[in-house]
């Protein structure tokens, strides 16, 4: 009852009169005139305890945290782990030797220098950037479990094993942004005015109202984004954060069954097709009987069924036609069959199929 001075709410009100607790405390004081003296003393104590704090700015804190992370990422190489296996004593002796430290510091300094240079040019900590851009809100962390995650905006996320999703509590009202660690299937509610962003440490995916899969598991050397329905844009974090004029063009657009693979070692994006393309959501794969059907038409139907662009030399293949029954196989089964029939071959280039054939005139 009398612990006013140690009450956070009272303190907030005393030090900041415009606090939300304002009306509560003004009311309280009016209703308890007998407590006036007590209030006065509690206030005096709060003023007396008010410290001249050494101010540290948010930027400085960010810098310190960044420094710490750089140090610790290098750390295990230079410092022994104090494991439970009783090597303690031996290490202690070594740790006491000043030469050891001189050496360690030198190595660490060189390492850190290189690392800072490398990081400054290649990577930023996306999670930290994400968290600090949502500083004013509450950020929730959802760990994988059996049930899909229902986001406040109506989008649904299914998290893969030991994956995590960070999202701000008021996702529906502001920019729609989440941070993913691990892998997840996203089914995004259409909201043309508010793009949905999925951040990972390597790639940033932007979608308007589609479904896609993001796979970003630290142990794997690569990150992938796969479009399931509709289009998504994928950016390398470096391109995404760069403010340059070309940044708008630096993303890669994916259509269904296309996938982008980011190789962390090479820091490179490659667009390709998924291993088992699926017919588009609203299309049914059915048995098709072709009887001397022009090849243009066959490819056209395949293109339409899977949403995968197929390029070929129209002139050269003008003479080709297909007589076959196709159905039930995978996309590549069908493609193989068709190519065999026209004596051609195909390649996957940049998420497209490119068919080459000398044509069918000779036959």
């Amino acid at each position, binding site marked *: 009852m*009398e*612990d*006013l*001075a*140690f009450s*956070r709410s009272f*303190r907030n009100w005393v*030090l900041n*009169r415009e606090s939300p607790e304002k009306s509560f405390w003004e009311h309280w004081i009016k209703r308890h005139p007998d407590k006036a*003296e*007590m209030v*006065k*003393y*509690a*206030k*005096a*104590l709060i*003023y*007396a*305890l*008010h*410290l*001249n*704090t*050494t101010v*540290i700015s948010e930027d400085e*804190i*960010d810098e*310190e*945290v960044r*420094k*710490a*992370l750089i*140090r*610790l*990422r290098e*750390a*295990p190489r230079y*410092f022994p*782990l*104090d*494991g*439970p296996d009783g090597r303690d004593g031996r290490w202690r002796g070594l740790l006491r030797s000043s030469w050891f430290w001189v050496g360690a510091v030198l190595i660490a300094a060189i390492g850190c220098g290189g690392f800072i240079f490398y990081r400054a040019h290649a990577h930023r*900590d996306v*999670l*930290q950037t994400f*968290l*600090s851009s*949502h*500083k004013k*809100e*509450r*950020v*929730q*962390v959802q*760990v994988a479990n059996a049930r899909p995650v229902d986001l406040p905006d109506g989008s649904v996320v299914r998290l893969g094993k030991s994956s995590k999703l960070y999202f701000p509590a008021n996702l529906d009202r502001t920019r729609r942004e989440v941070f993913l*660690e691990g892998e997840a299937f996203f089914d995004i509610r259409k909201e043309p005015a508010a793009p949905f962003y999925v951040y990972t*440490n390597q790639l940033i995916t932007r979608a308007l109202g589609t479904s896609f899969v993001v796979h970003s598991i630290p142990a794997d050397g690569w990150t992938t984004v796969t479009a399931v329905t509709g289009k998504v844009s994928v950016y390398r974090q470096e391109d995404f954060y760069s403010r340059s004029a070309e940044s708008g063009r630096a993303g890669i657009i994916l259509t269904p069954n296309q996938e982008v693979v980011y190789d962390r070692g090479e820091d490179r994006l490659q667009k390709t097709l998924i291993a088992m393309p699926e017919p588009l959501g609203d299309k049914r794969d059915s048995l098709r009987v072709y009887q001397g059907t022009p090849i243009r038409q066959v490819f056209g139907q395949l293109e339409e069924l899977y949403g995968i662009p197929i390029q070929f030399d129209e002139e050269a293949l003008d003479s080709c036609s297909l007589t076959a029954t196709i159905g039930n196989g995978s996309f590549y089964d069908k493609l193989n069959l068709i190519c065999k029939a026209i004596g051609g071959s195909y390649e996957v280039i940049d998420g497209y199929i490119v068919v080459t054939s000398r044509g069918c005139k000779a036959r």
Partner: protein
Amino acid sequence: MSAVNLLGEDLFLWNEFRNGNADAFGALIRVHYPDLFHYGTRFTRDAELVKDCLQDLFLELWINRETISETSFVKYYLLKALRRKLTRRLGRSRYAGSWEELHFESILNGAHSVETSIIREETLTELSRKMRHALSGLSKRQQEAIYLRYYFDADIDEVAEIMSVNRQSVYNLLHDALKKLKKLSGKPSRFFLFLPFF
């Protein structure tokens, strides 16, 4: 104030950190940095020294992450670890390490705090000054206990944990401190019951 401040999320980040997740560790230290820095600068005005100690602390935590225990009070764990580190550092550089002489800077160091614009009621200025005087007459440990109660909403057990003393000592520290304040300030007695002892 901070992005991730729920106890559960704190705990989650802590456990992630113990599993070797550097991003979680980064988020964790980002959240607690302001409080740790604030507490650290109570021991010394040398902000660079505090930053330095914090860097060492983070590195040690990381290196020892696998042997660090699970804790539900991450903040207090960190405060305690920082305190131990600073004590050792300051002890080494100044007074060969006697705990009693720990340089917990007087809460009221410098004459400026009371005069700042924070005080909106003139009539309280005199009273605050008196109270500040009374506070500065307290032992460093008493000041620290009050500070922890006041700034970090730490309860008696948490103060005991951070200061590495037992519960009874904290109780005594606070009790004596408040008795002294009461004596110096004169009246009124009821106000000084404001510490909930349970």
